[in-house]
């Protein structure tokens, strides 16, 4: 009975976790006097009910895919990048800066803005990477600290240099915008933009780098076992810094999706956007794999968009979705217990 091993297992764990989390979410609703069936059907309708909702779900997915890629790429190299949130903010600001201040033809302006965002995110990711490689500083702590530094610095920069009425920057020029009349028309006026194509391209890039290049092989090797990689002649420090740079670049592009697509500007953020933290959930549920991440982003994007319909139809507070997402993370992280149970089943035939 090796049914619960290997590839199937890596699909089964997220599925079981999602189902368990939805069940517990239902129990929470029952206990607080809501109707779970009505809530879940309205949630589902809120995702797929009409073309507007579908458009919004796909728009919500876009930065989540990229944030998920960012977290997963670092994970593959054995690093936990909680700093995606900060790298998103830095990339967002960089893309808006380029979008506002340059006059270029679209074919140059738009890629330039996205690449600048990627570079900005990469630089923000390299700092913790360097500290990890050079001083053995744990990246979890530094990336958390870098998040706050990014939040306060981007706000201060907007306030000092780029302020427009309404606590935000000016709109980016049309030549740097990802907005699409076509996509908006077919989705009944949602904010869907061309960013989803960028996100899908980046998913392919991530898969290609990790599985089809020597660099990706080395990154994964370092993730599995640093000592063995060093013994095999790989430069572990270089790989750590590189993986944080690429991870940060994905995160920066996620920021550009917000800056050039959804909003077309950057506002002064009182708190984090949450994109980076959701990226952790997305990469976990996607098992750090590009296709899994797209599915995970669709799930979480859908949950977030469907939540508003759920609260207007079944009167359930939208925070129920956050509870469900948290439970999913808990269950996936605790999959040791599922492994343990399946081992017991396999060994003894009974519990």
């Amino acid at each position, binding site marked *: 009975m090796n049914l619960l091993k290997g590839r199937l297992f890596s699909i089964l764990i997220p599925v079981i976790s999602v189902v368990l989390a939805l069940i517990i979410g239902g129990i*929470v609703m029952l206990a*607080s*006097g809501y109707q779970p069936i009505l809530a879940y059907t309205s949630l589902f309708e809120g995702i797929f009910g009409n073309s507007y909702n579908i458009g919004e779900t796909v728009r919500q997915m876009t930065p989540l895919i990229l944030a998920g890629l960012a977290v997963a790429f670092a994970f593959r190299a054995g690093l*936990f990048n*909680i700093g995606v949130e900060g790298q998103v903010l830095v990339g967002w600001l960089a893309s808006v800066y380029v979008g506002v201040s340059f006059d270029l033809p679209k074919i140059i302006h738009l890629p330039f803005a996205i690449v600048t965002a990627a570079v900005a995110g990469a630089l923000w990711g390299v700092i913790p990477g360097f*500290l990890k490689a050079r*001083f053995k*500083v*744990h990246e*979890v*702590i*530094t990336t*958390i*600290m*870098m998040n*706050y*530094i990014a939040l*306060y*610095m981007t*706000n*201060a920069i907007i306030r000092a240099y780029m302020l427009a009425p309404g606590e935000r920057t000016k709109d980016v020029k049309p030549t740097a915008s990802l907005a699409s009349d076509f996509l908006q028309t077919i989705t009944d006026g949602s904010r869907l933009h061309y960013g989803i194509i960028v996100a899908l391209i980046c998913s392919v890039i991530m898969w290609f780098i990790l599985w089809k290049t020597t660099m990706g092989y080395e990154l994964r090797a370092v993730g599995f076992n640093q000592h063995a990689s060093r013994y095999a002649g790989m430069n572990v420090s270089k790989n750590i810094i590189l993986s944080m740079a690429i991870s940060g670049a994905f995160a920066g592009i996620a920021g550009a999706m917000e800056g050039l697509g959804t909003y077309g500007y950057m506002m002064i953020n*009182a*708190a984090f956007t949450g994109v980076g*933290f959701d990226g*952790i*959930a997305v990469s*976990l549920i996607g098992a750090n794999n590009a296709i899994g991440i797209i599915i995970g982003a669709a799930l979480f994007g859908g949950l977030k968009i469907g939540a508003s319909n759920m609260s207007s139809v079944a009167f359930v*507070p939208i*925070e*129920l*979705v*956050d*509870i469900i*997402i*948290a*439970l999913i*993370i*808990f269950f996936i*992280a*605790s*999959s*040791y*217990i599922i492994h343990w149970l399946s081992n017991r089943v396999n060994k003894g035939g009974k519990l």
Partner: protein
Amino acid sequence: MSFLDILAIVIPAAIVSAAPLIFTALGGVICERSGVVNIGLEGMMLFGAFVGAVCMHFFEKMHLGAASPWLSFLIAIVAGALFSLLHAMASISFKADQVISGVALNFLASGLALFLTKKIFDAGETPMIHERISKQDVPVLSHIPIIGDWFFSNAYATSYVAIFLSVVVWYVLYKTPFGLRLRSVGEHPMAADTMGINVVRMRYVAVLISGGFAGLGGAVYVASISGNFTHATISGQGFMALAAMIFGKWHPLGALGAALFFGLAQSISVTGESLPFFKDIPSVWLLIAPYVLTILALAGFVGRADAPKASGQPYEKGKR
């Protein structure tokens, strides 16, 4: 306005804003000393703030008067400890990645607290609390020239409790058998196990204590600073406490000092614009100072900060 006058404004404000950080950072010290990484401090603090705000509101309605915040603190401690049980179960028993478990705890805390707030009050925030703890001058000591104005005037009792507790935690961790066991479990769990210490139980106790401390920190924040609970009440204080714990080199008194220092930076960033000398410093530098300093400390530029050896590793009996 002389420099001494400025200090007389800034220092009491710093002590006020440091108190919740001190409580939470102490919780972090205890937890991480036992070898369990606690990114979930933010969530535990948030949950304590929510429970504290709700209790204070209802106790106030029950006319408990000045006792209401203090009773609420006790309940917030229990609630924080119970909430942290999730982190303990996931990261100790189920051997989940402790960082991921902490991240999930943060998600869960904000989701659950806001969900319940909307359920109970049908609004996005709890009602404002009127029966808060009040600022007092410490008798006798506040009459000491200069120092009395700085440290013993216009202060909340909770700040002194926080400072006192830091000393207690230091004593327990470094001067009692319990503390030695707790630290040994965080440094070398296998050796500790060989000596007959129950690693799992020790770690459970440490996580629960940290949940209690963080819950208290959140409730004290509500009682002394915010006055109610909203989605923005706890936004990063838990992570700042985590930073204080690291900057304090995982030592209770170090964490106390770091929390006081971060509280100073916070209070200057809020009140600085009205003060000469400080108004020339852009507030962003003060806002990011705690985080930059923590990174520098970790990198060894401000004295080396080393985590407990076994932190982050689930303990499996018999594993080499």
